[in-house]
Every structure is written in C-alpha cells, then in structure tokens.
C-alpha cells in the first residue's frame, strides 16, 4: 500500500463526505482527491519523476493538504518545510535534498525566486495565493498554483502509479546536535505502518473529526492529515492556536472527536475560559512532541472528564514509539507507557546490553516504522541505526535516556545531547549559535533551553561581544528574527563579558 491510497480509498468509498474543513472552506473527499490528481499531473508535466523531491513550504491551508497528496500521487518524495523558514535556510534545505520543485506562497516566490532560481536542480517554483507570481529574474521557473492546476481540471483519475511501497515517500527534516538539519528518509511502508499502528490504538473510525492546529511541516501535524484520510474521517485544519477562542468555537461547531496537543497548546488551552463550551463530542486528546507537565494532565482531566487522554512519545526517525493507555493517566501520568502496536521498544546500557524492568538506559526501537536512514548522511545514519535482532536488520537508537518502572512502563528522562524542545519542536542550540556567530560583533555565543510555562523550554542565548561593540539585546533579537524560524528565535538574549568555562576550556552551559 502507498500513502496516497489512504485518500484514494476514502474518496472511492465516501466521495461526498467532508474530508477537510479549513477556515471557511469545506472539501469533500471527491474534491480534494480531484485537486490532488490535478497537481500530480501538473508536477509530472513540469518534469517531476519518481523519487524526485518536492518541497512544500506553506501554512496550514487547503493547498498544503492538496500539495501533500499531489506530491505523493506524482510518485515524488514529500519534503515539508516550516513556512517561517528564512531564505538562506530554505535554499540550504532545498540544496541538501536537491529538490526539484518548491511549493510556497506567492509572496515567498517574489522574495526568493531570484536566489532560488540559481539552484540548478530546482526546476519549478509553484506560487500559492493571489497576486503576480512571475519575476523576470527567475528564468521562467515560477508558475501560479491555479494556472498549473486549471490545465488538468478534467483529470478525475490519478496518474499511473510509479512507486512501490519500499520507495521513499517523505524526507522529514529534524534538528541535529551538529546544527545541520537531517532528512529522515521515510518509505511508504514506514508511513503506512505508523498510521496503521496509531489509528489502531486510538481506535479511530470514520466517525472521527480530528482537529489539527500543529504545522503540517511538523511530523505530528502531518500524520493528523494522513490518518484522517486513512480512516475516512474529517480533518479540521487550523493555522495555529493564536486565537484560542476561535479554535474552541470551531471544536464545538464541528463536533471534534480528537485533538492533537503539544504541551504549549495545552498551556494555551488551559489559560482560556472554557466554561461556556460543550465538549461532549471530544473522545480523545493526544500529547506528543515534548513531555507534558503532570499538572497539565490533571487540569485537562478536570476540564475534559469524559475525554480519553493519550500521553505519547516519538521522534522524527520513526514518528511514534510508545503511548500510555488512557486508563493509566491518573495512575502514572509521567509515563509514556509501552511500545505502539506492532513495534518493540527497550532500554540498553552503555555497552548495548538489553535491560529489564526498573532500569535506566537509552531507548531502542524496532519496527516497520523505523526510517531508512538520514538523507546523504551515512555517519549519522550509522550512529542512529545499528544491527538488530535478525541478520541485516537495523534498529533505531533514539539518543534519548529513559527509565522503566517495576511493570516495565517507560518514562522519558532526558536527551543525551543538548537539543532543546520548544513548542514541542526540536531546536538545535548549535544551529542558533552558528547563526549568532555570523553576526558582526559577536565573539562567542552559547544557547540553552530554560523552563517556560507555555513553551516547555524557551530558547536563551548568551552572547559575548567584541570590545566597543554597540550591539544591544534587541539588535541581536532583530537579527535572529530575520534568520531563524519562529520557534528557534531566542526569547532571551543576555550579553556578558565572558562565558563560563569547564576546566577543559569548554563552555559550561550548566552555569549559564
């Protein structure tokens, strides 16, 4: 089975059912499938072939959802990029993946087309939205979304299938401790296995209406879209949780049954006055991305007494690892339970020996959902994927430290590197430090995560400046805003005369 068949099967079975609610727009399965077919033909006409990378850099919109499906139908590899990504990083991402197509907002085509036009592998930039897309300096690479799709408006069938299920379906980029993002290669088989497992334990049916406020560029957000289509349910797609009241009203009016949270969304939700809303249709809430403070779980239980709460853990390299059964949430709220169906998870010590209950060690994962490796990064791949139980099999070493209790329930302890979790997303201190070091006047910079009631961890940068340098914190923040994705921009910038050192001369981040 290929990932896009989730949509195609539901479109064949339930053509008139609402598949997607986004802002004022409602699309049924027939409509969204037809748009995806049109895009797939458009991509192929622009030269996209099996295995080519198509980058999608869009806010949560109807077009973003169509772009996901259209890319897969064209036989291409989907690469989701956070829409707040700035030009330099966008160009470096596209370069790393050697992407052939970029789908982004019309506004972005205007800002980026001249620079991106120089990327030789990039054959086409598709601009979504109103306004003029063409720029004289882009070498004819830019085309409008509507213009492209219109040519294929009568294509009701998908293009001929060109992939098999061991082909790549997606490159999912994740922050690495080296500061350079890594693209986790996920096959159709991987992604179908994940969706099967998750929808099994969440007991999803076509009666489900799933609310997603997380960016589709974030794996956990993307899977909401894929799973909703797989079960023939409805996805309510919101851009963000910026206006909680608007989202809550939508939750009630659409009779949402499932809501995917990260701790930041839970914190915003719990600050809102929910007394006037009736959430009786809400069957389940999930948490992933980062560990939820136990206090949040308690408050969610009080606020949504009839709703099942699933505390889950995963990472981009396999999407999901484990979940806590909702009947355990009051008993061991800080646990993330056991491995998801049809997978295994266990702990190993430093020497790689498998540990039993009541132990502490690195979490290892085995299953059909484990990635094929990191795109173009054999060394990092060899560190993450190591020999498994069977000859030639590889299992995933997560780099996360866990413990188990007497009964074998899993508990997250810490990352083994210094990766920060802010808004549920991984943030690499090194990547931010690299950006800060490039700022004229900065001698040294160190970035850490500090506890934050809403974000989970907030990013803090400590910077040492050259003598007589006049930069203020605000100037450094302004520079960060121009060069980093929203979730990576430091909340605090502190200027110091020197950074604390360990005896070996390294920056001592514990003292920051």
């Amino acid at each position, binding site marked *: 089975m290929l990932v896009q068949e989730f949509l195609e099967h539901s479109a064949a079975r339930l053509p008139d059912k609402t598949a997607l609610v986004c802002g004022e727009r409602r699309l049924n399965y027939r409509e969204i499938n037809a748009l995806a077919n049109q895009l797939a033909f458009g991509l192929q006409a622009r030269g996209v072939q099996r295995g080519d990378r198509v980058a999608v850099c869009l806010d949560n919109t109807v077009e973003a959802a169509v772009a996901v499906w259209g890319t897969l139908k064209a036989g291409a590899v989907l690469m989701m990029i956070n829409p707040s990504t700035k030009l330099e990083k966008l160009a470096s991402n596209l370069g790393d993946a050697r992407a052939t197509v970029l789908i982004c907002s019309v506004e972005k085509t205007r800002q980026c087309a001249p620079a991106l036009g120089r990327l030789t592998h990039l054959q086409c930039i598709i601009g979504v939205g109103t306004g003029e897309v063409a720029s004289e300096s882009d070498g004819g690479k830019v085309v409008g979304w509507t213009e492209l799709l219109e040519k294929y408006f009568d294509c009701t069938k998908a293009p001929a299938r060109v992939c098999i299920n061991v082909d790549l379906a997606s490159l999912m980029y994740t922050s690495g401790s080296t500061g350079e993002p890594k693209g986790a290669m996920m096959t159709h088989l991987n992604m179908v296995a994940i969706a099967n497992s998750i929808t099994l334990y969440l007991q999803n049916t076509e009666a489900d209406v799933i609310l997603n406020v997380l960016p589709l560029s974030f794996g956990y957000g993307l899977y909401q879209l894929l799973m909703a289509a797989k079960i023939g349910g409805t996805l309510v797609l919101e851009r963000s949780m910026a206006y909680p009241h608007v989202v809550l009203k939508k939750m009630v009016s659409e009779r949402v049954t499932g809501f995917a949270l990260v701790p930041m969304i839970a914190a915003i939700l719990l600050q809102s006055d929910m007394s006037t809303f009736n959430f009786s249709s809400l069957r389940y809430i999930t948490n992933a991305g980062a560990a939820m403070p136990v206090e949040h779980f308690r408050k969610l239980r009080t606020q949504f007494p009839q709703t099942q709460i699933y505390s889950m853990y995963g990472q981009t390299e396999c999407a999901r690892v484990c979940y806590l059964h909702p009947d355990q949430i009051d008993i061991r709220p800080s646990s993330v339970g056991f491995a998801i169906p049809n997978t295994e998870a266990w702990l190993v010590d430093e020497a790689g020996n498998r540990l039993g209950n009541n132990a502490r060690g690195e979490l290892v994962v085995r299953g059909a959902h484990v990635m094929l490796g990191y795109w173009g990064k054999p060394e990092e791949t060899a560190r993450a994927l190591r020999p498994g139980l069977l000859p030639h099999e590889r299992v995933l070493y997560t780099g996360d430290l866990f413990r188990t209790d007497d009964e074998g329930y899993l508990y997250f302890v810490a990352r083994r590197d210094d990766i920060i979790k802010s*808004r549920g997303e991984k943030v690499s201190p090194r990547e931010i430090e690299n950006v800060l070091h490039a700022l004229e006047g900065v001698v040294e910079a160190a970035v850490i995560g500090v506890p934050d009631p809403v974000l989970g961890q907030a990013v803090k940068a400590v910077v040492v400046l050259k003598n007589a340098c006049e930069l203020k914190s605000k100037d450094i923040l302004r520079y960060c*805003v121009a060069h980093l994705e929203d979730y990576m921009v430091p909340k605090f910038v502190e200027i110091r005369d020197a950074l604390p050192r360990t005896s070996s001369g390294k920056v001592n981040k514990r003292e920051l």
Partner: protein
Amino acid sequence: MADIEPQIRAFIVENFLFGEDSADLTPESSFLESGIIDSTGVLELVGYIEKTYNIKIRDEEIVPENLDSIRRLAKFIQSKPLLLAK
C-alpha cells in the same frame, strides 16, 4: 484617541520587529499572515493593550477581527469602555 494607531504601531515595531520598522507594515497588514506575530505573540499583545489602555479584553473578544492589524486594534480599543480607576 486619534493617536492610537501610531502608538500601536510603535509597540509592534518595538516588541515584535525589535526596532526594525518596515514599510510593509501598513495599518491593514495582518499580523499573522505577514508573520509579524506568531501564535504565542497574541497573548502578549492582549496584555499590552489591557495595561496601556486600561481596558479588559474578554476571551471571546480575542479574535482576528478585533486584533489582527493596527487599524482593527485601534477601532476595537476605541469601542471599549475605560475601566474606572480604583
């Protein structure tokens, strides 16, 4: 109250653009669409407005129609009664 728009603009420039004024920031620019304010910035904005203009904004008033541009904000603030000084 005519000078509300410049005040709001100054606050946005200072706190969300870190002093970098931009010609793209017109009274009608959507804060969210243009990426000036992200999902965590709205509550910060509400806190500022409540404090500066001595008004109370209810949860159900925190909607894009009231808050998502300089002009909308100015109009919204002018429609609100001032809290009585204690």
